[in-house]
């Protein structure tokens, strides 16, 4: 990453962009008043990523671009040949932040400034009023309802969105044909109500929904599918991220799809194009998720020995596959399912494991250190692997890893490579997602102590969703590419990207 940065610094015309990047990132650092150097690094990586994704869909005939820096430059100046619609939209957004832009800027610099809000994703700048206004405007324009922000925020997480629970998101969805596709609406609701959870499931659901959109899409006259379709998809995505912030897996999936859309040749007919897109969705689904899962479970099973006592935390479809495969291979082992309040996903997980005929014990996370001393391995899935080797996963995973470490029990993380991402993060504050605090209130049959917590002005409830586990607590990451230490995530990323670019050229 550093290397690429250096290159960028040399590459003249990107200078401006880069500087903006730094300033922005520092701006972002203000709210989490720490680790400016590391963060800014992270942000730059983000810039790079974003520019690429931007670059990708703006250029057409330049095959095999992606992250190689040479391509970078070409991508940036490739914004001349842009469809009118594209330009118009840009200009509108440009006006919104007029003061931010010097009067005489070249197209690419405009482009970069246009990307400015995205550098530090707005989801992480909830405390920046101006930014929020911008986002709001954008949403309005796309006719996307906005969620009401909780009136009492958790101080530590002011920079993140904290929403009220709403009985219906879609209430305010306008019923115009131009609006959101019903499939997406449904999906959005399912996300918001946590009917669909788990990054795999969410990603798959998203792909299917997008497929539906593509099905129902017809290119308007004198427009190009490659441009217009993408424009069509944009509001849907932002709607979904309104319902629930996007998971890394979804982000990657969308990136992937967009890339393919933007690479559909002009002359290709709709039906062909659609078919092609279906295929690539299929591929993504099969290769990145299904096959990957197979490969991972193969690798993981080798690591499961007879007589093992395996501690698993929370709920992961991947881990389930691994365990049931191991059982199918005739391995004899025992599983201790550790669960965390308030959602108790692992209860469902437990049911499935029992159904698969695996011998299980079940405890809450408080008792983890009691059961850990009989454990021989810890196994959990990840929400994402960050470029600095930290593992973003369900909140509590880090605690389990820590306890495991203290009893020197090896910790194995299973994660498909499509969940790797360039973001870096060293604590659970910078980026995270806040769940509805009211879930903490319900404590089963007991009289709820917190039922009227809103009456006490000095009382706040915090219901985190993710946390990051530092690499030193994790023995190995099992990916479809093999067993890797989590410090070598960037390597994998780089490799993947090169593969992609080969694949597409």
């Amino acid at each position, binding site marked *: 990453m550093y290397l690429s940065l250096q290159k960028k610094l040399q590459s003249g015309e990107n200078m401006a962009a880069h500087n903006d990047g730094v300033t922005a990132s520092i701006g972002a650092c203000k709210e989490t008043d720490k680790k400016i150097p590391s963060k800014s690094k992270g942000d730059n990586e983000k810039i790079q990523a974003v520019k690429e994704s931007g670059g990708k869909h703006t250029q057409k005939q330049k095959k095999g671009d992606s992250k190689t820096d040479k391509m970078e430059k070409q991508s940036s100046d490739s914004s001349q040949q842009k469809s009118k619609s594209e330009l118009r939209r840009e200009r509108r957004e440009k006006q919104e932040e007029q003061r931010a832009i010097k009067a005489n800027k070249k197209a690419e610099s405009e482009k970069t400034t246009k990307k400015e809000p995205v550098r530090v994703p707005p989801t992480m700048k909830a405390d920046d009023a101006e930014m929020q206004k911008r986002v709001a405007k954008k949403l309005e324009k796309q006719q996307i309802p906005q969620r009401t922000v909780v009136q009492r925020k958790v101080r530590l997480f002011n920079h993140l969105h904290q929403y009220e629970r709403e009985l219906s998101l879609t209430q305010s969805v306008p019923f115009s044909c131009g609006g959101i596709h019903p499939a997406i609406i449904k999906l959005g609701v399912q996300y918001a109500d946590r009917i669909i959870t788990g990054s795999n499931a969410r990603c798959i659901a998203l792909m299917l929904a997008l497929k539906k959109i593509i099905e129902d899409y017809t290119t308007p006259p004198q427009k190009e599918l490659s441009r217009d379709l993408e424009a069509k998809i944009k509001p849907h995505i932002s709607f979904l991220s309104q319902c629930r912030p996007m998971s890394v897996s979804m982000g990657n999936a969308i990136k992937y799809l967009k890339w393919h859309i933007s690479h559909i040749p002009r002359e290709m007919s709709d039906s062909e194009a659609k078919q092609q897109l279906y295929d690539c969705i299929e591929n993504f689904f099969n290769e990145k998720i299904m096959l990957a899962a197979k490969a991972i479970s193969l690798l993981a099973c080798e690591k499961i020995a007879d007589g093992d006592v395996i501690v698993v935390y929370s709920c992961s479809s991947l881990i389930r596959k691994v365990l049931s495969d191991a059982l199918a291979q005739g391995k004899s082992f025992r599983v201790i399912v550790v669960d965390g309040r308030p959602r108790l996903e692992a209860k469902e997980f437990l049911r499935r494991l*029992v159904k698969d005929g695996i011998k299980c014990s*079940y405890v*809450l996370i408080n008792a983890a250190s009691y059961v850990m001393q009989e454990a021989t391995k810890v196994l959990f899935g990840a929400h994402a692997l960050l470029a600095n080797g930290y593992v973003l996963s369900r909140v509590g995973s880090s605690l389990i890893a*820590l306890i495991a470490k203290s009893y020197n029990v090896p910790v194995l993380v299973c994660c498909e490579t499509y969940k790797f991402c360039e973001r870096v993060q060293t*604590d659970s504050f910078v980026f995270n997602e806040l769940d509805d605090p009211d879930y903490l209130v319900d404590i089963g049959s007991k009289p709820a102590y917190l039922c009227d917590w809103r009456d006490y002005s000095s009382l*706040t409830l*915090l219901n985190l969703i993710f946390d990051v586990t530092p690499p030193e607590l994790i023995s190995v990451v099992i990916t479809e590419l093999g067993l890797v230490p989590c410090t070598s995530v960037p390597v994998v990323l780089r490799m993947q990207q090169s593969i992609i670019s080969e694949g597409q050229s």
Partner: protein
Amino acid sequence: MMPTGEIERKEDLDERIESFIAELKQGTVQGTYNVAYRTVSLLVRVISQTKWNTAKELIEIVRREGLKMMRAQPSETSVGNMVRRVLKIIREEYASALKGNSEEGDPQESLHKMLLSEGQIDDYSQPVANLKAAVIEAIGEFNRELETSGDNIAAQALEHIHSNEVIMTAGKSRTVESFLKNAARKRKFQVIVVESAPFYQGQELAVSLAKAGIETTVINDAAVFAIMSRVNKVIIGTHTVMANGGLKAINGSHAIALAAKHHSVPLIVCTAMFKLSPQNMCSYDADAFNKFVSPNDVLKFSEGEILSKVQVFNPVFDFVPAELVTLYVSNIGGNAPSYVYRLLSELYHPDDHELS
């Protein structure tokens, strides 16, 4: 043949003890303080209501009754502590009555003594005038110490909490509660309370702190590690302090202590002296270390089939090794865990460490 009055009193006493035992078994006695307090008051009754002539007999009686109570719920160590403490008081009073001088001298074994081969008194058989009165009086003093211990600890709050700190605590310990509230009267700070499922005392504490106007945030147990990086101090209560400086504290404390260590956040334990136990329980699997209650809180009984296939555990306590503890704040001041052994030697007589 005892006079009927004797019998009456005896029965009444036995009844009280029995019912206390029953309550211990059903775990209806809330909080270690109450357990300790009731034990002491029962022992006072034992001393006053039973018939004995010499200190030796008395010690025997107290030990016997004490054992009964201790057996009822071995995990309630404070019962045992109190019994030992009372025994110690008896010995002291006896010694002072005998020697005339108040202090019996350090009863602990020591090389020094071995060399000088001067044994401390070990026959308690001589009859001593008005020993009963003396003992009861001494115990009364001790009782006062018990009652005030909480406040004494709270009084030290300001030495440990400074303004704008972020403090994490777990469970609901009366000591910690008053400690924090006391500090809040002078200083402004933020408290993060771990709810500590499945008993949720944490939530209870949070509400009471919020009522006291302390800025409180409730987190679930899983989020401990995530939040720890922003915490300046972890202040927890405990159930027992082991002889080796280890802790027996509410379920989940070990994880918290580890997280604190990992982020090198100091871990301060508020404990009254009566929680010090001469026992050396150094693992979860030691008998009578932990208490396991009905798994119903973890997994509802109505969950159905899976129950028959799944083992569910619901331990109440957690063991925190001494090396994770930074400081003990007791009613006689702050101590490092490595110093616990000394405190013990002051509290209990070595012969009483093993009562059975």
